[in-house]
């Protein structure tokens, strides 16, 4: 009696979680540098109801006992790191990445966070120089882990291989180092920490999850003046939404069917 009801109720909850995740993806269809989330379902524990010895009749195919399942659950949410398309904006502060790489951002508590969102800004500092920061004011780091400071009077240019240079009004160029980039080794171990930033969880060694990229990294291009669009494909999300909706409907149908059965049992007598 309870098995049907518990199975359906539990599965409906799992489907609701998937629906929430799809809604999150769709809401972020225009967010720069957003990576869509995917999820995997798994069936929950199975219990085997033991059978008496007399139940072992000839012609039985499986080992003794009756297996009962208890529904499904959302096993985990992972990031889909597919490349988003690049869109030209012309802003000097917008930087897009092509390939497996993330920008390094310095957090207030001294740790590092990573992001694909390259819509940076240049804030003026008291001494006249400017600093490259994210939209939320956090400093973008260079390959040595330091904040990027552009001396007064220079215009920042970031080349495709990631090296940074400052050009002054006369055309002379000052090398400003390399923009800090990391490569993801295990995207499933990255945690979203809000504001389009990714981090590594407290107990884990960051070197396992991300790898510092050297100068002029292979397979990675840095484009100044472009932003990377979200990699959410509305058609795919809608198709998944329909599938989840129908599965939800089927599960509620099973729930109401089991409710009718319990009603019948209650009305056996009077």
């Amino acid at each position, binding site marked *: 009696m309870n098995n049907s009801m518990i199975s359906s109720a539990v599965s409906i909850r799992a489907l609701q979680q998937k629906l929430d995740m799809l809604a999150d993806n769709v809401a972020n269809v225009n967010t720069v540098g957003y990576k869509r989330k995917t999820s995997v379902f798994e069936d929950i524990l199975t219990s085997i109801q033991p059978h008496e010895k007399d139940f072992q009749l000839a012609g039985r195919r499986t080992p003794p006992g009756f297996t009962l399942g208890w*529904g499904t659950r959302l096993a985990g949410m992972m990031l889909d790191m597919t490349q988003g398309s690049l869109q030209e904006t012309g802003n000097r502060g917008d930087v897009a990445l092509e390939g497996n790489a993330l920008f390094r951002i310095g957090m207030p508590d001294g740790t590092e966070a990573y992001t694909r969102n390259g819509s940076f800004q240049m804030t003026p500092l008291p001494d006249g120089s400017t600093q490259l920061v994210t939209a939320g004011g956090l400093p973008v780091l260079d390959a040595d882990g330091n904040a990027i400071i552009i001396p007064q009077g220079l215009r920042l240019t970031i080349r495709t291989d990631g090296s940074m240079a400052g050009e002054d009004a006369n055309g002379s160029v000052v090398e400003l180092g390399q923009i800090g980039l990391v490569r993801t080794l295990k995207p499933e171990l990255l945690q979203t920490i809000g504001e389009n930033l990714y981090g590594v969880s407290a107990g884990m060694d960051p070197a396992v999850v991300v790898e510092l990229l050297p100068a002029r990294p292979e397979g990675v291009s840095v484009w100044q003046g472009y932003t990377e669009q979200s990699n959410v494909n509305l058609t795919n999300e809608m198709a998944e939404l329909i599938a*989840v909706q129908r599965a939800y409907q089927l599960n509620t149908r099973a729930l109401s069917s*089991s409710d009718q059965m319990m009603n019948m049992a209650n009305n056996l007598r009077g």
Partner: protein
Amino acid sequence: MLRGLYTAASGMMAQQKRHDTVTNNIANLNTPGYKAMNAAVRTFPEMLVSAMGGEAVKKGVVGRLATGVFAEENLLSMRQGDLMETNRPQDLALVSDILVEGAVFDASGKYVDPNGNVVYQPQVFFTLQGPNGERLYTRDGSFKSAADGTLVTADGIPVLGDNGQPIVVNGTWEDIRVAPDGTLYSQALNAPLPDTPRLLLTLVNNPNDLLRSGDGRFRYAGDPANIREVQEGDRVQVVQGQLERSNVDAAQSMVDLMSALRLYEANQKVIQTYDTSLGKAVNEIGKI
């Protein structure tokens, strides 16, 4: 007492189990690698009913009567699920269609030869190492990497390679290509990884010997002679970047659900009828 009362009650319980099985199938409509279950209902052994006494009735056997049904077993339907593209390098799917000499299997993987012997189509699974060191099997290929590089399932159970040890990949999986026989290649080196790791694929001769142990995994409970590693020439391949969908048929499940409900109701009516008859026997016939 009235035998039919208990027969009808057993009918209700059997239909309840059938309903539970179908509900679980429906719940797992989107679970990758899930194999649908079918409840098989069986009648109790029959008993002989004989007449006792009475002038008009000749003393002797009246006939056989079955006294009820029970849900005997939950059979696995090992039909190949459709493949769904995910583009994740760690998502793997198994496509298996093992040939057995002289047998042409039907859609459910069964063949009955002219002598009446039943042969089941062998099935291939990924091999996992359970928490107590025992071997577990699964068709759900949605794997990921643990922090130390071990290939694990979504809830952390390591996947075994053909050397009996978990597969460990140092570095990123973006570079790894899995060949159809399960060998892991590095795209950058254009060669297999050091020690040539290969996924351990296990072939089970009779899938009915498998017991579910939850979370999409199976345990083997049959004869050790009937389980072996996949060999050259077996028709099975590993497809990277795709997952095998659940093989549950939603429409059929709905029909089974409705049928279980109505049979439950029919048995309920039988019990109510017996109840009315007993009521009459007690209240009206025995009235003083």
